[in-house]
């Protein structure tokens, strides 16, 4: 008989990828487990917020899937408390939450969210993106040009070429692009984006943020109505998708 209950800590191994699912509905928990079984070596489960925080601290998972509608704790609170000691990627599952709540969640430190009901493929793609992002950080552009589709982004020389042709970006557009690329694969809120470019939380330019992004998109996307890299998350912000 081993002391310490069923969740015996496993030895920490840096190359072993594990996921913690904090979700009160057993059906959804099973779905997440099935989706992620092929992606990771172990899936831990918790059916409440406090329990999830305990398991997160004990197991140090590579990724956390967090449901917003937990019986004991607010999802934002769980996010905030994990962020006090860890930068582990957090993907939130939400059922009926408004864009404002999603924005608050991302501002509180969540990396992405998936809206219920979601397809397994959608969740798998988001989880893969987060795991990859966590591995490749920090920004690889510091070493050399980053190739994204038909774009070559050279952060050191501050140049962008599309199919070999130089794209002229204004300082604002460059700021936006580098903030998006730095957070590639992650949904970045309007507020976070503004802060990254202008260095403050508020300003006159804030109301035109969407227009600046639209200009940037027209310069680097082949079809601005079907963007492959700068994707709009309506009411929340933008996400840079490198592998389109």
């Amino acid at each position, binding site marked *: 008989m081993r002391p310490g209950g069923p969740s015996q800590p496993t030895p920490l191994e840096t190359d072993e990828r594990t996921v913690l699912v904090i979700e009160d509905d057993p059906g959804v928990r099973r779905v997440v487990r099935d989706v992620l079984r092929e992606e990771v070596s172990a899936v831990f489960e918790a059916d409440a917020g406090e329990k999830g925080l305990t398991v997160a601290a004990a197991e140090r998972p590579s990724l956390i899937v967090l449901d917003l509608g937990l019986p004991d704790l607010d999802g934002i609170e769980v996010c905030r408390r994990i962020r006090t000691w860890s930068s582990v990627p957090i993907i939130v599952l939400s059922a009926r939450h408004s864009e404002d709540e999603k924005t608050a969640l991302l501002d509180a430190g969540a990396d992405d969210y998936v809206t219920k*009901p979601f397809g397994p493929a959608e969740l798998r793609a988001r989880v893969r993106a987060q795991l990859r992002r966590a591995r490749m950080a920090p920004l690889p552009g510091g070493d050399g040009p980053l190739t994204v589709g038909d774009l070559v982004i050279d952060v050191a020389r501050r140049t962008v070429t599309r199919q070999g042709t130089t794209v002229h970006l204004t300082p604002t557009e460059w700021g936006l692009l580098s903030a998006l690329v730095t957070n590639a694969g992650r949904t970045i809120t309007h507020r976070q984006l503004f802060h990254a470019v202008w260095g403050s939380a508020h300003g006159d330019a804030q109301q035109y943020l969407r227009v600046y992004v639209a200009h940037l998109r027209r310069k680097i996307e082949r079809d601005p109505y*079907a963007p492959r890299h700068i994707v709009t998350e*309506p009411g929340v912000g933008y996400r840079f998708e490198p592998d389109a």
Partner: protein
Amino acid sequence: MPDAPPHRTTLSAYGTAPPAASARRRVAATWVLWLAVLVAATALMLVVRPRLDKAHVSLAFLVVVLGGSAAGGRALGLSLAVLAFLLFNFLFLPPFHTLTIANPLDWLVLAAFLVTSVVATQLLNRAQERAEAARQRAVEMERLAALGAETLNAGRAEEALVAIAEVMRSALGVRECEVLVPRATPSGLTSLVRVAAGGGVRDGAVDDARPWSLAAWVAEKRQVAAERADGTKWIGGADGSDGHLQWPPGTTEVVTLLIPLMVRDRTVGVLRMADVMPFTLDPSREQFLSALSYYAALGVERVALSAEAERAEALREADTLKTALIAGLSHDLRTPLTTIKAAANALRQRGSEEAVAIEEEADRLNRLVADLLDLSRLNAGAMPLRLEINAVDDLVGAAIRRVAGALGGREVVVTTASDTLGSGGGRPLLVGRFDLVESLRALVNLIENAAKYGPPAAPIELTVGHDGRMIRVVVGDRGPGVAPAERERIFEPFYRAPGVPPDVGGAGLGLAIARRLAVEQGGDVSYAPRPGGGSLFALTLPATDDVVPNDTSPSAADRPTS
């Protein structure tokens, strides 16, 4: 009765009219008493007749006449005056024991006595009648005042009506008083409240199958009517809409009296007073009854209004409950839908054909849940909007991305309206002030609608343009179009064009929601037939005049248009 409610106590103090039999006995006793006084006075004076002067006799008789008159009224007074006149002549004016008079001057004395007695009796009685009328009015005033307080104080509107009915019943001294109101019964009337002598009170409408034919006539003609003991009827001639009712003459003995209740030219009910014994209506009470029936009419009106207010309150509560229920249901439905979708997906991976249908239906259910949520949100009123400066690129791009999965690979083609293209053919960046999330929802609904009704092979065409102060996204399909008669109705919730099979699309909410979301932001969704066949649905949203401060120095074609 210390435990009774206050208004009952007050009402019981009004009492009822004394029964007729005992009143007659009392009158007879008074007559007997005063005749006896007259006889006694005469006998006393006969004993001392030699020492009496004519003046003494006439004064003594006058005192008796006035006394009798005061106690028994005009009839007794006059009777006593005539008797005293005869006794005076017969016993005290010589020659005694005859009605002849010796001294002609005695005629003067006798005549003076008679005139004085009669006039004094008349004056006394008139004064008494005035006093009585004043007392009556004081009582009526007191009742009206008490009634006013009661009706203001009554918790339920029905209680005020009961108070009014009880006052009317006791004022007339009848057995029961009832208020009838219009209802969907065979007679068109039903009893709302009823009070009866001895404290029988019912407040609240009953299922009333009694044939109120005369009452219905009263309600319709706005005239007073009455029923006699022999079943014959009396009806008033004057229409009561100007506030003047014609009452049955005071001599008419009736068992039922029906009074129309009117508020501002509308008949709100009928007041019914009834007794088993015939009663007459004292003409002096007509004014009082008129005033009270107006009170009763207002009471009926108040009952109706409070019922209406209760109904409105109930509706409001039901609405709140419905909204909360829909929101809760939506949440609770989405969690199992996730599980269902995932299970179906796993089955499909293993090659199950049916699993595809399960997944599709789960998606359809999810869309329906979203529609219901939107509808309840819109119906709740005061939808919070985030009107921000947005590029149409974002709106169109996000809409195409969102519908991509549901279109099954069908193409969506975006073009810029020819009048919006720049001089060099460049596509200007269109900017408006709108809520991106809600506008996206509207546009997605329009695209899904086009996908539903258009032929599967044909692409869905989006045309982006601007139109003065508005930006415009037109969604075109090559479907059957919409018949002219249906063109506004398609924007009603749950409306479905005739002939559309039930498995096409959702619940008929998409267009209704799209239009309402657009209107909330100062835009609109409108329909136009498409040249060459099909439909055009135009979403318009307010453009913005704000000049974007720019360090980007974009080319002319990229500059915001508005």
